[in-house]
């Protein structure tokens, strides 16, 4: 498939043009280059999608080998692209959602000084992400993996003048680095075991390998945990919200943070061989979704709420992967990309309109003032809360809940945590929606006289059209996959199961309908509770505020279960202590000693330079006498 290479190459081209000539280009040209490359890539992807779906390739994948990358001994790595059913979903999301976000950014970032730099980084990100998901071997995948990490770093610290932003970027880089190191070690072990990096060969050879090291999937899981912000490496994602909103939408919600999900799904054979790794994935996913959900309930920053909810939703995906519900995980990724990108973009408009106000309790009453944003946000929130039947989130999350309980690896504990997560999700989503869009308007319209008030800021079509498209998809994209008992329509899992194995279920299953009713009730209960607390009788919150214990719990959750403080005392402080103790170690002493000796000699010699003529003459005389003596006695 010669078209394959164009998909990552076009964004790369855009990156090169914008980074090399970006300063010289006028703004009118930057946006078409930056967004245009992604749009063309997206069109190519859709053509490929259509062809893939209509006439599936014989071996299940389009492949294209571009050139030999390097040869070392028996290891030969080529730049080869591979598009199968799984990567097709990812490529579609990356290019399609990416294109919409680029179009939105063309308007959103127009005021920014570094317009070209923004689009250059975004294009490089899309290119790296496409390389990651289209890579035919794990070395190329790792290249894309590090590439997206770099772009994430660059874009979190996009407004680098503020020290907090740079710190957030550094934090994201360091923490994902922990996972990346584990993943690299995992890849080395994999090569040692199987002698190849080619993905189809690995998937084919692994079950036949005489010995199998269960450390490999665990190390790969650690890599995925770092990238996908799962427990215990989740602390970077809430801080990553320092970047511009489109960056949060594209990188920290829709695509990059799901790279871990892709990695696990891609290497599913390795995980299936190790029940321990599967269980670890499921447990990490379940714990993460619960912990992050709890934190999301008490946040006040609109983007941090969404960040914690992203961590929580990716936790659902990990849970699904861990119980062996491969297609359910990918399906949740598919719908999540739409509604979470939408929520971030809409939040971006709200923040921008209210003069960079992030605190939801200073918003309020935006329902009638920003109708388009409100309606699209409503659609996204419905999907996030998994509102039954009408939203895409329901179809994907319901599957995960069902499988968490009833898949071969699932059990009641995982299922009930997932169910609690569903309650929490619907609670904080409703809270967010009610506080931001209902109630009284709380932002004082402090704006320079002569300009229209900030609240009257109406997003133009460049911003609303992506919102509307994503809003429609947030509601409808779930219809391609129905629960088995409602309607026998399983387009998505049918597609994905060309690559991934089907989900194994337990025997003697309870009725799926009963589960759905319970899930629905739990979701509605969450919504109702939030409605009571935040709309009907807000006095109860004031009552809670009085109680010291409630506030302590709230603060604990607000700080993300104090993980940052824990890591500070566990790692940062001892490290700083050790460095302080070890400040003058042996090698330091050696070099300081040399410097000190030179300084002492210098002082001694400079004593002779005392400016006294008589002293100099004595010196000359002594020299002459020395030479004469030497002449006389030899």
């Amino acid at each position, binding site marked *: 498939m010669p078209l394959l290479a164009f998909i990552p190459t076009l964004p790369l081209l855009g990156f090169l043009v914008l980074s090399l000539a970006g300063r010289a280009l006028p703004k009118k040209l930057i946006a078409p280059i930056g967004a245009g490359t992604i749009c063309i890539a997206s069109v190519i992807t859709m053509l490929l999608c259509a062809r893939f779906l209509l006439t599936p390739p014989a071996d299940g994948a389009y492949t294209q080998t571009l050139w030999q990358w390097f040869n070392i001994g028996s290891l030969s790595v080529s730049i080869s692209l591979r598009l199968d059913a799984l990567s097709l979903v990812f490529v579609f999301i990356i290019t399609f959602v990416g294109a919409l976000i680029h179009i939105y950014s063309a308007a959103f970032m127009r005021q920014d000084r570094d317009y070209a730099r923004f689009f250059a980084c975004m294009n490089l990100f899309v290119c790296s992400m496409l390389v990651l998901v289209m890579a035919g071997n794990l070395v190329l995948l790792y290249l894309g993996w590090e590439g997206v990490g770099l772009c994430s770093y660059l874009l979190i610290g996009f407004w680098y003048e503020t020290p907090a932003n740079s710190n957030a970027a550094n934090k994201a880089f360091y923490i994902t680095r922990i996972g990346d190191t584990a993943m690299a070690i995992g890849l080395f072990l994999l090569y040692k075991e199987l002698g190849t990096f080619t993905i189809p060969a690995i998937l084919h050879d692994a079950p036949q390998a005489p010995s199998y090291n269960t450390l490999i999937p665990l190390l790969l899981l650690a890599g995925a945990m770092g990238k996908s912000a799962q427990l215990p490496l989740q602390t970077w994602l809430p801080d990553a919200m320092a970047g511009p909103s489109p960056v949060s939408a594209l990188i920290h919600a829709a695509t990059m943070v799901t790279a871990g999900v892709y990695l696990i799904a891609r290497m599913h054979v390795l995980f299936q061989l190790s029940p321990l790794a599967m269980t670890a994935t499921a447990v990490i996913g379940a714990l993460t979704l619960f912990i992050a959900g709890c934190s999301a309930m008490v946040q006040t920053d609109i983007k941090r709420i969404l960040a914690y909810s992203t961590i929580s939703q990716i936790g659902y995906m990990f849970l699904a992967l861990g119980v062996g519900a491969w297609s359910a995980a990918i399906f949740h990724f598919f719908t999540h990309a739409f509604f979470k990108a939408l929520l971030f973009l809409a939040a971006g408009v709200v923040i921008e309109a209210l003069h960079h106000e992030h605190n939801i309790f200073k918003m309020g009453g935006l329902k009638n003032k920003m109708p388009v944003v409100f309606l699209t946000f409503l659609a996204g929130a419905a999907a996030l809360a998994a509102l039954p039947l009408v939203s895409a989130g329901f179809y994907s999350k319901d599957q995960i809940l069902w499988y968490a309980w009833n898949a071969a690896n699932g059990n009641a504990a995982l299922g009930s945590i997932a169910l609690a997560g569903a309650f929490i999700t619907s609670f904080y989503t409703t809270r967010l929606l009610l506080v931001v869009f209902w109630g009284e308007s709380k932002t004082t319209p402090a704006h320079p006289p002569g300009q229209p008030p900030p609240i009257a800021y109406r997003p133009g079509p460049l911003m609303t059209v992506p919102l509307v498209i994503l809003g429609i998809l947030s509601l409808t994209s779930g219809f391609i996959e129905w629960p088995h008992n409602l309607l026998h329509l399983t387009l998505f899992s049918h597609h994905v199961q060309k690559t991934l194995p089907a989900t194994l279920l337990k025997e003697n299953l309870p009725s799926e309908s009963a589960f759905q009713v319970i899930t629905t009730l739990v979701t509605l209960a969450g919504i109702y509770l939030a409605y009571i607390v935040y709309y009907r009788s807000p006095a109860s919150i004031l009552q809670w505020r009085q109680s010291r214990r409630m506030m302590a719990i709230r603060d604990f959750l607000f700080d993300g279960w104090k993980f940052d403080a824990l890591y500070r005392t566990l790692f940062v402080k001892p490290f700083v202590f050790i460095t302080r103790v070890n400040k003058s170690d042996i090698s330091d002493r050696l070099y300081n000693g040399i410097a000190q000796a030179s300084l002492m000699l210098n002082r001694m010699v*400079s*004593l002779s*330079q*005392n*400016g*006294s*003529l*008589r002293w100099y*003459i*004595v010196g000359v*005389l002594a020299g002459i006498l020395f030479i004469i003596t030497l002449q006389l006695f030899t």
Partner: protein
Amino acid sequence: MSSFNGEIVLIVAAILFVLGLIGVLTRKNIIFILLSVEIMLNSAGLAFVAAGAKWQQPDGQVMFLFILAMAAAEVSVGLALVLQIYHQHKTLDVDGLKELRD
């Protein structure tokens, strides 16, 4: 020409040289130091002349002429410098002139 006793002349030259050296080392005034240097130069010249007389060669006297010319040039430059030093520092005491120390 009667026999020339070079040793006495050389001893005189050596005494002159040491006198000059002592003058250079002990005098405080720059002008006296310059004078002492002249004495040392002349003692060297005397030694050359004595050596020339002893071996019946003209080189010693040629060398003395060179020393004479060099001494004249040195004194003119030296005195000019002394004048400048006095102009700037209002003193000719070498112990007071220590600005070139480290």
